[in-house]
C-alpha cells in the first residue's frame, strides 16, 4: 500500500521535475564544489548567491525573463569580484563580506519598494523545488550540460592551476583565463540552483557533499565523483523526507547532506589520518 502511494507521488509531474532538476544539479555540484573547497572560495559562492537576489529584483522591475536576469547578474557579479580580487585595496575577505550582505539587503529593499510586483521572497531565500516548471527544468538541464561539458574539457588545466597556479603558469597555462572560466561556471550553477535550495542555502549544496567526500578519497577525481554521489543521495532522501515530514524541501536536503558529512567526518577512516 505504502509502496504504491510512493510510486504515485514520485511519478507525478512536479515530483519528477523536482527530482530531475535536483539530481542533475547535484551531479555538477560535486566537481564544482570540490574546486570551491580546494580553492577556499566558499565565501565567494555565498556572495554570488546573495547578489543574485539583486538580480531577481532588477529582473522583476524591468519585466525581463527572471531566470535570464538571475544568470546575467550572477555572471556580472562574478566578473566584478574577479576583477576586484586582482587589485586588492581592501582584503578579499572584507570585500566579500560587504558585497554579500549589501546586495542581499538592496535586493530585499528593492523588491519591497516595487509595489507593482508581488513575489514570494521565501521561495527565493529558501528554495521551492516542488514549484519547478518544465521551463525551469529546461534551464537547469541546459546549464548543467554546459557546465559539465566545460568542466570535462578543462579538467586537467583547472586542476593544475588549483594545485599550484605559479607552476601551471610556467608550464604555459593561461591562469587568469582559467580562473575566470571556473568563476563563471560557479556563477552559472548558482544562478540556476536558486529555485532548488534558495539564496541562503546554495553554497551548502556545493560544499557539504565534497567536504563529506574528502575523507573517502585519495585523488581529486574520486572526491569529485563521490561528492556527486553524496549530493544526489541528499537530494533524493531530502525530497522524500520533506514529503513525509511535511517540512520545506531545501532545508531538508541541506540537513540530510550535513548528517552525511557528520557521519563520515567522525567515522574512523582507514585512508587518511
Amino acid at each position, binding site marked *: 500500500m505504502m509502496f504504491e502511494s510512493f510510486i504515485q507521488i514520485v511519478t507525478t509531474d512536479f515530483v519528477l521535475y523536482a527530482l530531475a532538476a535536483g539530481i542533475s544539479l547535484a551531479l555538477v555540484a560535486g566537481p564544482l564544489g570540490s574546486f570551491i573547497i580546494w580553492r577556499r572560495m566558499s565565501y565567494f559562492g555565498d556572495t554570488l548567491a546573495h547578489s543574485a537576489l539583486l538580480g531577481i529584483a532588477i529582473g522583476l522591475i524591468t519585466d525581463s525573463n527572471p531566470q535570464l536576469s538571475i544568470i546575467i547578474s550572477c555572471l556580472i557579479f562574478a566578473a566584478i569580484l574577479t576583477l576586484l580580487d586582482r587589485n586588492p585595496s581592501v582584503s578579499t575577505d572584507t570585500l566579500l563580506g560587504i558585497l554579500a550582505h549589501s546586495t542581499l539587503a538592496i535586493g530585499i529593499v528593492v523588491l519591497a519598494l516595487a509595489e507593482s510586483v508581488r513575489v514570494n521572497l521565501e521561495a527565493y531565500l529558501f528554495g521551492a523545488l516542488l514549484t519547478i516548471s518544465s521551463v525551469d527544468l529546461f534551464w537547469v538541464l541546459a546549464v548543467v550540460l554546459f557546465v559539465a561539458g566545460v568542466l570535462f574539457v578543462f579538467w586537467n588545466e583547472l586542476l593544475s592551476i*588549483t594545485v599550484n597556479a*605559479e*607552476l601551471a603558469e610556467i608550464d604555459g597555462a593561461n591562469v587568469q583565463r582559467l580562473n575566470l572560466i571556473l568563476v563563471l561556471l560557479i556563477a552559472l550553477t548558482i544562478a540556476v540552483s536558486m529555485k532548488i535550495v534558495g539564496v541562503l542555502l546554495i553554497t551548502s549544496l556545493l560544499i557539504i557533499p565534497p567536504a563529506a567526500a574528502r575523507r573517502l*578519497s*585519495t*585523488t*581529486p577525481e*574520486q572526491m569529485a565523483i563521490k561528492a556527486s554521489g553524496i549530493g544526489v543521495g541528499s537530494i533524493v532522501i531530502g525530497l522524500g523526507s520533506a514529503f513525509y515530514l511535511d517540512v520545506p524541501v531545501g532545508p531538508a536536503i541541506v540537513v540530510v547532506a550535513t548528517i552525511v558529512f557528520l557521519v563520515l567526518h567522525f567515522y574512523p577512516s582507514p585512508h587518511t589520518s
Partner: protein
Amino acid sequence: MEALNSNSSTLLSAESIYKNFGPRKVLEDINFSIDRGQIVTLIGPNGAGKTTLVRIALGLVQADAGRIIHQPSLRIGYMPQKIHIEPTLPLTVFRFLQLASRNENGLNARSLIEVTLNELKIVHLQQQQLAAISGGELQRVLLARALLRQPQLLILDEPAQGVDLAGQAELYQLISEISNTQDCGVLMISHDLHLVMSATDEVICLNHHICCHGKPEHVSNDPAFIDLFGAGAAPGLAVYTHHHNHEHDITGNIKSPDDV
C-alpha cells in the same frame, strides 16, 4: 620577451635587469646568460634578490628595466623553493606528476614518470599523498616534476633545502649528471657553497648587483666573495687574498672609497 636565434648555444640571457620594490633597490644592472649544458649557480646572502632574479627570468615578475631574451619556445622546468599543498585536496604523488607531464599519451607518461622517480630514488612515494610526505621527499618530487617537463633549461630555487647532508651531495651530483646527459642548461640558487662549487660551471655572486662571477675557483678567491661569505666559505678550494676593489655596507650597497 624577445627570442634568441635558435642556432645560438645560449638558452636565456638577461640584459641589464633593474628591479625596485618601492624605494628598495633589489636588482641593479644584472647581466648573465646560460648556455646549453651549462650550470650557473646564484649565490648571495638572504635578501640579495636571488629569488626575484629567478622569477624575472621565469617571466613571473616584470623587470623595471632591461630584458630577458631566450630561445624561441624554450621549455623550462622549474623547481620552486617550497610549495603549499592544500590539505583538502587529495592528491597522490603520481597524479601530481601526471598533471605536469607534457605527453598526452597516458602510457608513455606513466613510464616516463616511473623512470624519473627511479632516477631520483622515490618510486616508493608514487601512491603517497603529496601533503603527507616529508620536506626532503617533497623536494625530490618537485625536481621530478621539473624533469618531466623535459626541459631545455632547469631552474632550481634552493634544490637541496630540507634534504639531509648525504642526500645533498647526491642531489647536486644528480643535477650535474642530468645537465650532462640531457644537455640542458641549469640555473640554480644555492646556499650550500662547498657542495655547489664542485658541480657548477659558473658562479654568480649576487648582492643586489653582481659582485663577482666566473669559474668557482676564481670566484672563491675573489675579494667580493670573501667579503660576503668569509674566507672559509668554500673549503677545499685554494683561497688567497688580494686587493679589494670595493666594499659593501650593511644593505649591500657599494661603499664609496671615502667611506672606507
